[in-house]
């Protein structure tokens, strides 16, 4: 029985039928495999997925620091998304709402009689007390059911208080996971925020203006990327949305190139900005030393500017020099270890590269809420059949904005870059980097996690807080790749060392060797009685 079969063995009937297509064994690198994904979870399986609200408010909108995001609903949802995701932000002017949680704290009467008045009043109070750049409203489960028209409230408030006010109907039950929420958030940002300043596109030939998309600045990753990019000579117009601001997003259309870090959560915006502003995007990866180098070179290649290219190599050399000693130390310590990674969108892919930098092979990987293209590459997108849950999520179409349209990249250059495997308007997916008997699980659950741990016995397993303590109880070190175990940044060169150090400490902490009481392995009657005897 191979690993996949062993995992599926316990399932019967409908669960087996469902889960078998979510588990894929990758025998050989390069051989295409299909995986079921972005479909409803099986009720009763202890999964790690969150909901639509979590994707919209928790992931995409939450990091905007100058915006009051009001959770419209009972208290819980706003409470749980308060200060827990480590999307760091630093407002030079102190106008930082990241440390706050705003909610309408709906009560029974509001559920019965409707919450629109309460929401309107809450917006009023938010504007009066906090004077934010914008107010955003995210609704939670009951709101859709009781029929609160949050768009109407937002429109009224916008007019009355003279402040941008945007509503997101991201009720938890929508879609099948956080993924629906990303999409809804993307749509809202595209419709109302991105480019809304309508400033002109700089016309000089050579500007190196970037947006970083799908970078939420967990543990300061975004800051580290900005540091490197600025050092090379790029200008970062906006980050979506780590340490992001409403203000910056309104100017995002002026960038020359969009870098897509987390493909899953933000590819919608990348595509729509391409359509509307003709801004090219490339899939990047700042996680991992070699990946960061590759990414930096590809960006330089995109701009094809000698100064930038030279500076890129200088910065790479400088950064490598700084980490050389520690890189060597941790590589020696970690080479030959194996790992499992179960995380949200793109990290299960990204971190395989970083681990490989230190000689660690990933033998199990899975996504929580990815789509097939995240596994198999964007080439499968035309083949993906949308099910009912996904169809319910609004798809918006944008039109080219002739006034703010960027000059197109030369077609020949585009093809040349693609030929060089630069992921321009493309993401290859995780599978192409795996194989060799490793296993991939989509929407992994508690039971399956236990099972693969038993089968593969990895040296370390990266997941989230809900799994972490279970994994460790089984004797396997586990670090959280959602929150970086409160460390970071893990991005780029220095970040890779921080990651390696944490991994090394987790694997080598002496407690692992003491888990079994000595009297369980040797009788106390044979136990040594101290090293010395006074007798």
């Amino acid at each position: 029985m191979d690993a996949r079969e062993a995992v599926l063995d316990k399932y019967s009937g409908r669960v087996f039928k469902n889960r078998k297509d979510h588990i894929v064994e990758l025998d050989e690198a390069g051989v295409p495999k299909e995986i079921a994904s972005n479909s409803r979870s099986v009720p009763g399986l202890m999964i790690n997925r969150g909901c639509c609200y979590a994707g919209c408010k928790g992931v995409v909108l939450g990091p905007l620091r100058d915006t009051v995001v009001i959770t419209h609903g009972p208290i819980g949802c706003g409470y749980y998304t308060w200060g827990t995701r480590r999307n760091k932000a630093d407002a030079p002017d102190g106008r930082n709402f990241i440390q706050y949680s705003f909610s309408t704290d709906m009560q029974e009467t509001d559920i019965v009689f409707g919450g629109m008045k309460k929401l309107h009043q809450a917006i009023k109070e938010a504007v009066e007390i906090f004077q934010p750049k914008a107010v955003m409203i995210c609704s939670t489960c009951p709101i859709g059911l009781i029929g609160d028209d949050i768009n109407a409230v937002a429109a009224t408030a916008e007019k009355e208080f003279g402040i941008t006010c945007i509503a997101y109907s991201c009720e938890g039950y929508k879609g099948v996971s956080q993924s629906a929420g990303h999409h809804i958030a993307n749509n809202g940002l595209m419709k109302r925020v991105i480019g809304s300043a309508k400033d002109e596109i700089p016309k000089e030939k050579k500007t190196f203006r970037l947006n970083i998309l799908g970078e939420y600045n967990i543990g300061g990753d975004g800051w580290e990327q900005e540091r490197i990019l600025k050092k090379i000579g790029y200008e970062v117009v906006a980050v979506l949305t780590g340490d992001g601001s409403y203000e910056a997003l309104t100017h995002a259309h002026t960038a020359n190139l969009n870098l897509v870090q987390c493909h899953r959560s933000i590819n919608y915006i990348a595509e729509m900005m391409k359509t509307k502003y003709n801004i090219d995007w490339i899939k990047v990866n700042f996680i991992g030393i070699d990946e960061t180098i590759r990414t930096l070179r590809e960006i330089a290649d995109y701009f094809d500017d000698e100064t930038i290219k030279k500076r890129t190599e200088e910065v790479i050399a400088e950064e490598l020099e700084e980490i050389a000693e520690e890189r060597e130390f941790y590589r020696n310590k970690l080479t030959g270890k194996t790992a499992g990674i179960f995380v949200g969108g793109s990290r299960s892919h990204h971190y395989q590269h970083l681990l490989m930098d230190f000689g660690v092979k990933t033998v199990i990987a899975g996504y929580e809420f990815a789509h097939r293209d995240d596994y198999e590459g964007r080439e499968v997108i035309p083949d993906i059949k949308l099910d009912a849950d996904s169809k319910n999520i609004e798809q918006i179409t944008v039109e080219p904005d002739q006034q703010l349209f960027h000059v197109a990249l030369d077609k020949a250059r585009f093809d040349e870059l693609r030929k060089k495997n630069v992921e321009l308007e493309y993401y290859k997916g995780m599978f192409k980097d795996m194989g060799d008997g490793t296993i991939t699980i989509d929407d992994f659950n508690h039971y399956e996690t236990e099972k693969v741990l038993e089968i593969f016995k990895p040296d370390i397993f990266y997941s989230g807080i809900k799994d972490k303590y279970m994994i460790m109880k089984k004797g396997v070190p586990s670090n959280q790749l959602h929150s970086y175990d409160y460390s970071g940044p893990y991005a780029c060169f220095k970040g890779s060392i921080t990651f390696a150090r944490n991994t090394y400490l987790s694997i080598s902490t002496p407690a692992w060797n003491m888990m079994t009481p000595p009297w369980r392995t040797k009788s106390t009657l044979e136990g040594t009685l101290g090293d010395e005897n006074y007798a």
Partner: protein
Amino acid sequence: MKIMLDMTPKTITERKSLRVNPAKTCQPVGAMYAALGVHRCMPHSHGSQGCCSYHRTFLSRHFKEPAIATTSSFSEGACVFGGGSNLKKAVKNIFDIYNPDIIAVHTTCLSETIGDDLNALIRELEIPQGKLVIHTNTPSYKGSHVTGFGNMMAGFINYLSEKSAVSNGKIGIFPGFVNPGDMHELKRMAKSMGVKYIMFPDTDGTMNTPITGDYQMYPKGGTTIDEIRQLGGAKHILALGELTSMIPAMEIKKKCDVDSTALPYPIGVEATDKFLMSLSKLSGKAITEELEEERGQLLDIMVDSHAYYGDKRVAISGDPDTVLGLAAFCLELGMKPKYMLTGTPDEKFTKLAKEMLLKYGVTDCIAKANADLFELHQLMKNEAVDLLIGGTHCKQIAKAEDVPFVRAGFPIMDRYVHSYMPLVGYRGAMRLAELMGNALMDRQDRDAEDKDLEMVM
């Protein structure tokens, strides 16, 4: 100057609708915690899968333990057609794959708004022989996580507890929404006296389990189903937490005609005295010398160190009975509560707080239910305190206002070990005294000029 929580203005304006930085969360997470205190029980969240995810995360962050729970994974379709089908599938799969003895279902704002009739849905389930499914209603838009905790207890009682003509002589102890370390200490005290008790729920042994390399989805701790059944024949219930344990106490009366006595959390001297005397009265067992000695040691510590607490102004935030308990001990130490705030909306909190403050002649304390940490922060900006006690969410206020901060209550997400250690009982009070004393004395040392740094204190 840029500081933590810089957007919080000193001027307090009335808010009727906007909740900012809440001091409570929703019912279901309390229900989940209560169910985790039952042996071989799988808590089940009947709603969208985000709820379950958030609640498990919340509990794992506080306890640094796995928090098992399943979800009905509502989709948009379930909202239209009701969650019955999802529940049915879920229950089958849970028993198939995770094999608990009992599934404890709690609702969410979604299933409540839809109007799922859980009684009916459960009646229609095919439940394997010897297995159980029970439920409670925990609408997130009423009360708080504390309410949900009580409701889940009531759910268990309602389904399981059996009325008995003859008492089994046991004392039921409802520990309230406290840590495993507290429940452990409550049991230690009862054991010391030789009292026969049923602790319900009991997360000591489920949410503080050892690491051995062999993960047990159902650790050996937790109140057994049989014990919950027997609660119906208990001699009497000590319902700790005059707000927290009210709902289950009323339920056991209604269902099984068992009387309960409401007691404050045994935090500090008098509340622990009350708990032990009640145990003693009900069981006929004497309070042991061991416990009396601990009491005397606690008082000795209080007397010895009184100068460091005396007249210190303290702000306390947290769950209602926890705040009341902490305030009681602060008053016993000679401190002056200045703010007592809970997010849970229950005016009984305010009433009990005022009675307690009156007893100690403290007249300028602001005690509020249904409050939030934004308000607490604003209040502290207007009139400062010497010490802040609360869960992790208070840490930003502590940093912003540069106030010594003691973590106590729920949730503590940024420290370790706390959940193993008691705040209840005389030993728990010693620990609290040490935590508060150290916080105050560390601050004195920090702020001391070099010439004033004391070697003896």
